[in-house]
């Protein structure tokens, strides 16, 4: 799980061009959006597209995304359970 969390952190930093942010700066147990990373709801939806592109996970409902993005740990568990 920790390696998947690290992988997701790297994707978030690269995908959102978070200059100066290191994986250590991202708390694995805090909500991904609406916190210190200055990522907004459009970024959350972009992450939905990244999950589909890279892990084949199709999210069509916002409630599913909201749960998955509760924290990086939650996201890693969601990805591990749903990846194709």
């Amino acid at each position, binding site marked *: 799980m920790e390696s998947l969390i690290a992988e997701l952190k790297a994707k978030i930093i690269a995908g959102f061009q978070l200059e100066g942010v290191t994986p250590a700066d991202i708390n694995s147990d805090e909500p991904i959006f609406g916190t210190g990373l200055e990522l907004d709801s459009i970024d959350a*939806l972009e992450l939905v597209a990244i999950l589909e592109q890279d892990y084949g996970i199709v999210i069509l409902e916002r409630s599913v995304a909201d749960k998955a993005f509760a924290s990086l740990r939650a996201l890693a568990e969601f990805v591990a359970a749903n990846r194709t």
Partner: protein
Amino acid sequence: MSRRTPVITGSGIICAAGCGVAAVRESVRANRSGLGPLTLFSSPRYANHLVGQVRDNVDELAGNVRGSRSDKLSWIAAREALAAAGLASGLGKINPARAGVMLGATVGGMLGTERFLTAMLRENKHRFGPLRFHECAGAADLCAKKIGALGPVATLSTACSAGAMAILAAAELIEQGEADLMLAGAGDSLSRLTLNGFGSLLLLDPNGCRPFDARRTGISLGEGAAMLVIEAEETAVSRGAKILARFAGWGVSCDAFHATAPQAEARGALAAMQRALECSGLQPSEIDFVSAHGTATPDNDAMETRALKQLFGDRIPPFASVKRFFGHTLATSGAIKAVLAVQSLREQAVPGTLGFEVADEKLGLEPVREFRAQPVSHILSNSFGFGGNNVALVFERADLSCRSRREEAYFKAGSSQSLLTSAATKRGFAILGIGAVSAAGNSLAEIAAAFRSGGAANSAFAVPAVSPTAQAKVYASGDFGAEQFIEPAKRRKLSRLQQMTLVAARKSFSSGLAAVAPEKICVAIGTGLGSLNDTAAFVENMILKDERAPRPSLFTSSVHNSLASQIAIELNFSGLNSTPIQREISFETALWQGATELASGRAELALVGTADELNQYQLAAGMRWGWWHEVSLEIRPFAGALKNRERPLPGEGSAAVTLGNAKNVAPPLAFVSAIRIGRSENKDAEAEARWILQTLERDGIAAGDVDLLLTGANGLAKLDNFYRAIAGELSRLAGRNIACGAYKHACGEHHSASAFGFLTAVGLVCGEIAPELCTADKTALTTACHTVVLFTISQTGTKGMCCIRA
């Protein structure tokens, strides 16, 4: 009788719930939804979604009309509205010069463009034909041509509030005395872009929308068109037209909050509704029914019910959302609701909220469930668009007398001159700042230097759509220093065109102006074609990946009004926020909207401008059609060098100007007045010269004061000669030699070029640009340039002008 009160004398509609007002009325009475399976095009991702597709044969119904599906839908609704107003066989007693068209649109010919791109990317077939009907302005141009309207003609694209915005803009033109009769409404077809776009935002409910229901998850996408004939009461009475309903007032606001999400506390929505009541002279208790925006997204319905509670307290009038009848028809949404509001006022009955079953405790409000009879005198109709562009309209029963005192604001007692004109008579609206991104440079000094060196330098633009090595010569903006104006965290979310627009806007808005209240600052940023590169990237992705993983950020920047709304968000301006998209006169339309907000007192500052960018598909089409090739000539106005099918080199850029009333803090660079838009059918130089003179005269400008007619001359002999002939006629009528000028050799040919022309005019009257660098006839100008008339006529005959004075 208030002579210029806008009244409604005709309505027309086509949507999934039926073709024609009578058919849609039957669906609404019977609580029958028009949602059904998607068959218009194939969509692997959303194949099982219910959509509001028009089932009638649109091509057949439209008759002998060439255009996009949106254009055809628009004409079908327009034809019905005109017939209802007794204008089936023409304008009759109405003077064509006082009849206009104002439409909302967001999709335009995207459906055809998608087919073109699919054929190219999937089968390597190059069928550029549909691109001719890509533009959203097509419907307004088509309707104006069919009617023979020679008054103001324009298109507005404020996403899902565009139809409502177009209706109030039409009413405003009537109250100002710029027109006696307007066709107003909107038309939008379904497209894969919008379906995938809303899908990427997780805003679709596959089983059909459920407005205000506890289980709601999103919208159903729909299509259609709805139109009203709006005219001045005196016009309707004098020609014996039946008044169906009155247009009592309107309110506009911008959330200045987020690209797609509504502001949760409903500040913007509440402000729009409050302004609408104030404008109508009504108390909240006088509203009998609210036609809600009610899209059935979790956020919209929560925000809207909150706004209703704030406005009406514990006496909330019956409200309903009609979205389940025909889906969310985007720009058309506000126009359909206007047509249904007129119907409700005539029948004394209101529609129900189809799809609503389970009340949402969190909302604490329940909409009207089923069609029912009830007395209705006033209806408030809400439309909220992406970017937080909010519009509220108030419709009134025909036999009531409008209490609004707007007319007094526009017309001083006993004067026939409207305020738009008289506010400008002293000196005009003050030009407080200008900003540019262009091939010629990004400041007045750089632009002046480019003029001195004979124009802007062109560069090569790769066009892989033609071949891996194909290049087009263009006037490109190059590096415009975005990093100095936009911080990196924000920049990564903005399209290149959004960045160009924001840079120009920031340059035009000096810090000294920041003391003005945010709600008193309006933004009108036009565009001919919007963020083409992000739009193309979204559609390419959709086609090549079979709709897998659609990219939401590309979709949001493909929305035309993201250009204006991002400025509102970034600079916190919450007044009117609009995006005119009328080909070459997008800037002049934006200028008219800004001036109207200033003249009415609703705004103290107006930030107006335009932006357009180059794109390889647009260039590929032009190369295919023989417009451009490897040895294309640079733009040399009046040189007559272009031959056969050759066209002027394309360009791009953004220009913005901040206007205010003269009392504002910053010292003005110059003044602008005689702002007007219109349309011509024949290339008659004398008629154009007279139109210009008449516009100058009503703003108190003597023809003899005009030094230069600055035009869109671009090297095409036919166009250049026409502009020169107009300058010749102007000279004859004014009794002095008025030179003919040009600016496109410094910015290239594009839909936002006239905004660059405006900056050129400011440079001319400020003495920064030497007049002989812009003129054909160097002997014509013997003195410095103090008064410049900027005049632009588009390929389809719409035209605009303004006068810039030192």
